[in-house]
C-alpha cells in the first residue's frame, strides 16, 4: 500500500529547514545559505514495512519569525508538521512555547515534531544547560550537516501519520 501525506516544515529563517529536507531527500548538504521564498515542494517515499510505503510530500515553507504570519493556504491538507529551531540562535527558540501553542490551537490533532537543528555546532552540555528553555518541547536534536537523526525524524513522523 502506498499513500501520500503532506507535511510542512515551519520555523524562523536560517534554521536549516531546507538543509534537513535536502539531506533527507537527496542526501546532500551545502554550507551556503540560500533563503527560501514561498514554498519548495519535494517528495520522498518512506518504506514503513515491506507492504507499506508512505510518499511524503514535503512543503519547505519560507522562514518566518512570526508564526502567525504563515500563509493559511500553505497549511491546507497538512497531515504532519515539523517545527525547526536553530540551537545556535536563541532568537529562533525564544518564542518556542507560544509558537507551539499557536500551532496546536489552530491545527489541532495534526502530529508535530519539534527539532533543534545544527547540533554539530553546540555541545551536549549546552543542550543540558538549556533543557528548561527547549528541552521539554524538543523531539529531535538534528544536524543536517553531520546527518544526525535526520532520517529518524522523517521516518518517525511518517510512521505516526499512518498509525
Amino acid at each position, binding site marked *: 500500500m502506498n499513500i501520500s501525506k503532506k507535511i510542512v516544515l515551519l520555523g524562523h529563517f*536560517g534554521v536549516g529547514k531546507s538543509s534537513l529536507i535536502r539531506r533527507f531527500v537527496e542526501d546532500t548538504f551545502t554550507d551556503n545559505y540560500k533563503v527560501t521564498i514561498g514554498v519548495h515542494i519535494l517528495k520522498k517515499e518512506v518504506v514503513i514495512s515491506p507492504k507499506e510505503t508512505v510518499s511524503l510530500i514535503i512543503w519547505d515553507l519560507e522562514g518566518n519569525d512570526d508564526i502567525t504570519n504563515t500563509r493559511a493556504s500553505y497549511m491546507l491538507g497538512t497531515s504532519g508538521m515539523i517545527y525547526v529551531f536553530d540551537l545556535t*540562535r536563541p532568537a529562533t527558540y525564544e518564542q518556542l512555547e507560544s509558537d507551539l501553542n499557536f500551532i496546536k490551537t489552530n491545527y489541532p490533532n495534526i502530529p508535530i515534531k519539534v527539532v533543534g537543528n545544527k547540533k554539530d555546532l553546540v555541545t551536549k552540555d549546552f543542550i543540558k544547560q538549556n533543557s528548561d528553555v527547549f528541552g521539554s518541547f524538543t523531539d529531535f536534536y538534528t544536524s543536517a550537516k553531520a546527518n544526525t537523526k535526520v532520517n529518524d525524524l522523517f521516518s518517525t513522523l511518517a510512521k505516526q501519520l499512518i498509525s
Partner: protein
Amino acid sequence: MLAKHKLAHEKAIIQYLIVDKKSIILESDDAFFSNVTKQSITSLHPFFESITTLLDLEENQEYLFSCIHLETDNRNIIADITLKTFSKEHALLIIQDLTTHYDNYQLTAQKRNESVIDSQILELKNKYLIEKEEFKNTFIANFSHEIREPLSGIITFVDILGKTNLDSEQKDYLNIINTSSNHLKHMIEDILDISKIEVGKLNLIEDSFNLSEFLEEFVFTYKIKAEEKGLTFLNTIGEKLPPQIIGDPYRLKQILGNLIDNAIKYTTKGSITLNVSLNQVRANKASIHFQIIDTGIGIEKENLDKVFTSFTQVDTTQRNKGTGLGLAIVKNLVSLMDGNISIDSEFNEGTSFALNLSFKLDTKTKDKKVEVATVEKLGKDKYHILLVENSEITQLSVLKILAAQGKFYLDIVTNPDTLIETIQNQKPDIILMDINLPNTTGDQLAIEIRQLPEKELKKIPILALTGKVFPEDLKRYKKAKINDVISKPFDEKSLLKTIHKYLK
C-alpha cells in the same frame, strides 16, 4: 513583421487547466506545461498531488497558493497558483508565472535574512565574550583570594622566624622562602592589576600627600635595595617641586617602584639614577618630570616597542624571571594619570625611562604629615583587639605579630553568631574583620555593629582583613562603614601601621 517578432519573444505567463475530481486534466491551453491533456495533474509536480483532496469539493471556492516553486525536468518557475472549485462544474487551475518578480524579491530577502542572522550571531559572540571576561575576572579574584590567604601565613611566619635564633644555613633558606613568597605576592598583585586595567576597573584615588616626604622614603627604600646588589643609587630631587600635591601616592609608588625594580634587576654593575624635577605649574597643576637611568644590559632598538606589552620579556635568558606585566602596568597607570612615558636604551650600555605626570596642587594643606601613633606614644598600657576570622593561619599570624608587641590582648571569634555578644561583653578597642565568613560576610557584620544601641560600641574602628580588594569590594566596605582595609597577604609592618592609625 511585428507579429512575427512578437511571436518569437512573447513568453506565456499564465496557463489555464480544467481538472476533474479524479485529478485528470480535461483541458489545457498548454501555455507552458504542454501536451498534458488526459494526464493526471499529479504527474506535473508534487504540489498538485497535495491539493487533490480539494478537487473533490462540490462547492464554489477559490484557493490562492502564492510563490510556489515548480521545478520540473523542462523548466523551473515560481508561480502563483489559483484553484477554483465549482458546485456544478470541474475545477479550474490558473498557474501564473511570476519568476522574475519573485527572483527580485529573493535577492532582497537574501540580503535581509543574512544581515539579521549576522547581527544575531554578533550579539551572541559579544555576549559570549562578556561572559568569558566575567568568568576570567571572577576566577582571578577568587583564585588570588585563595592564594593570598596561605601566602599571608607564609610571609608573617617568615618574619617571625627571622627573629629567632637561626644558624647561617637556616638564614639562607629563610631568605629563599622570603624572596620566593614576596615574588609570588608581587605576581598576584600584578595579575590583579592588569586584569583590573583591562576591564577599566582600576580607579585612581585622589589624596593629598607630601611629595618630598614621599620621595625621601622612596629613595631610602631603593637605595638599600640597589646597594644590596652592589650598585650605586644616585638621585637629584628638584628644589622647585611643590610640597603638597593631590594624586594617587600608592600608584605613583607602583610606577616608580616597577621602573627602579626593573633597573636594579637588569643592572649588574654601575648605578641607578632617579631624577625628579618640576616641568611647570599651570592652572593649579604641577607637571613633574621623572627620569630613571640605569647602566644595565640595555635593550636592542628593535625590541624597544615591545617593552610595554603585557607578558613580554625582552630578556628571555631566564636569568631575570617575572610575569612580564610590570612595564605594561606602568604604561597603563601613566595613561590613567594622563601622563606620558618614553624609553631610550643602548644595548649593553643602559636604559633610561622618562615620564611626565601632572598633579593638582594642594594649597590648603601645609606640609601635611600623617602622624601614625607608635606603640610607645599610645595612651593605654594594653589594647584589646578582637579578631573575627576562621582561618587558623591568619589567626596565628595576627596572634604572633601582636603578641610580640606586648601591647595587645587578642580575642578571636570564629562563629559570627556570637560576635555581637562578645563585643558587648568585652568592648574591644579595634575589630579586625575577615570578609569571607561562614554563612555571612564581614561587611554584613559591620552593618550590624554600626546599628548597635550602645554609642561607644557602634563606633569601634573596624578594619577589614581580606584578599578581596577590587574597587566594588572597597565600595561595599565603605558603605558598611568599615574604617580601613588590610589587604591579604599582609606583613607585620602593614598590619601594625594600620592598627596604630586607629588606636587612641
